[in-house]
């Protein structure tokens, strides 16, 4: 084989191999990264009749996240702390501690949210009272439609 023919054939082989790798690699990498490009769907989810909530009380409510896959099972469920401020207004707090995301608990008598992981404490209005959390508890949008309280599902509050 002449050297130039040899060079030509090796270039063709390398180019073809690269093309094959791309045909396989692009969809694989794209598929793995697809969660990054997916649009964040948001849904209003009803969590109960408004009259069932007592003014001044904070309770946990459970609802499904925005777009659960059919095989998500119970992991599709999420929760929020919902408080009826007065007849008209509701406030919904994320259950995730802003420190590292652990589920905070509401202590009704003390009027505080307490985090089990590293002992973060939040006041009733979600502001940080003590401990490691850097930010107040995030809030979810809430509205009342036809007598039902609805919460706007949101991504996990991260960073």
């Amino acid at each position: 084989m002449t050297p130039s023919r040899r060079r030509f054939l090796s270039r063709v082989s390398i180019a073809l191999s690269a093309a094959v790798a791309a045909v396989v690699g692009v969809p694989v990498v794209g598929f793995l990264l697809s969660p990054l490009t997916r649009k964040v769907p948001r849904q209003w989810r009803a969590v109960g009749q408004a009259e069932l909530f007592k003014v001044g009380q904070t309770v946990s409510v459970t609802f499904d996240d925005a777009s659960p896959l059919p095989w998500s099972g119970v992991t599709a469920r999420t929760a929020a702390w919902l408080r009826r401020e007065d007849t008209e207004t509701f406030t919904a707090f994320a259950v995730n501690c802003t420190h590292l995301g652990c589920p905070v608990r509401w202590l009704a008598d003390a009027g505080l949210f307490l985090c089990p992981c590293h002992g973060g404490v939040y006041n009733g209005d979600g502001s940080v009272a003590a401990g490691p959390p850097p930010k107040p508890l995030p809030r979810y949008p809430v509205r009342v439609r036809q007598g039902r309280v609805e919460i706007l599902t949101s991504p996990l509050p991260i960073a």
Partner: protein
Amino acid sequence: MIRRALAWLDDRSGLVSWLKHALTHPVPPRTGWWYTFGSATFLAFVLQVVTGIALATAYVPSSGQAYDSLRFISEQALMGRFLRGLHYFGASAMVVMIGAHVARTYIMGAYKFPRELNWLSGALLLLLTMALAFTGQLLRWDQTAVWSVIIGAAQAGRMPVVGPQVARFLLAGDTVGGATLSRFFAFHVFFIPALVFALVGLHLMLVLRHGISERPVPGQPVDKATYRAAYQEMLRREGVPFWPDAAWRDVVFGAAMVAIVALLALVIGPPELGKPPDPSILEAYPRPDWYFLWYFALLALTPTSWEDAVIVFAPLVFGIVLLLIPIFNTGERSVRRRPWAALVVLFIVVTIGIFWAAGERAKWSPDFSAAPLSASAVHNDNPTVVEGARLFHDKGCEFCHAIGEQGGQRGPDLTEVGTRMNAVGIAGKITNGGPGMPAFARTLSPREVEALTAFLVTRQ
């Protein structure tokens, strides 16, 4: 007959002579028990692969069904409980052994010329082992596992710029759900093990190529120009065949390790499955498996202003330093001439040990189960004091402060607070709070503060 079969196999493949060569290659004499951690790590990995494959035949990696399939494995399948135990304690063994192996090679300077790549491939294997441990913990798809993903994602989210994207990549979306577990499953059983196999192959090839490092002798530094020849010369003079002169120790040590793993799996069994993986059950107390517990403790004890440094930069710096170590690749190997090497290892082990013990006790976590103080614990029947004792529980004070044997450890023990502080001081502390303690001015009426104070001054 067998001999003929082997001869045929060797003629067609060369495998037998290659194996013979690998087994009988000369190794330095007097290697001793310190040299068995590496093969034990490998053995633990093989154990993980075998038990993992067995478990995978019954495990359903679906976020909706994994929990039930684990219940089935642990409660009904023949020896399923034992297998899960083997896999769990095998993981622990692998973590411990790779830690010991890294420490040993570092202390003995075995990473020095010409074995830099042995160290690099080993360092990557250490990181992959941690990744296997983390992803494996998640496959135990119970409540703790779900919260671990959320916490892991929150941690990743602290990275500058790319944080939220990395978090979404881990979760496979914006919340824990249908795709999260499948992703971790694929990483835990396919992707990371494949990398481990490849790197172990490279690692072993390098060990054969450069030979097992001989015991360091103080005052005999590695010199690039002469080391190889001197090593070969030493092997010719006093080398012994790997099998069985050195290998028997690997076998004995490995067998002992497997025996311990099996015993623990039988006696203690696998970690119990917690509550179902339902993120809306908020009665949760997430904490990692023991090999990450020290890190969990570190995060609890870091002051807030240092936090981002600890979460993001500390692992980064650790990784970089680990990869840079072989830059110091010649010179003294003996730890007698490198006392700082021993000190570094000692420092790391002690630090991890301290934080691990702290994590075991988790004093910073409020004790939600603290029961109201009994009348005998209050030992005072002044109505205001009794009222204060009730408030001490109801207002959550007791979750963080202990009185007698009851209550949390997050704040100072208040059993004898009356001897340290007067009423004014106590009332001020309650209303204004302090570092780590909320100010109760907004949530307590003056009367309640008074009752609490009255109760606390009687504590002496």
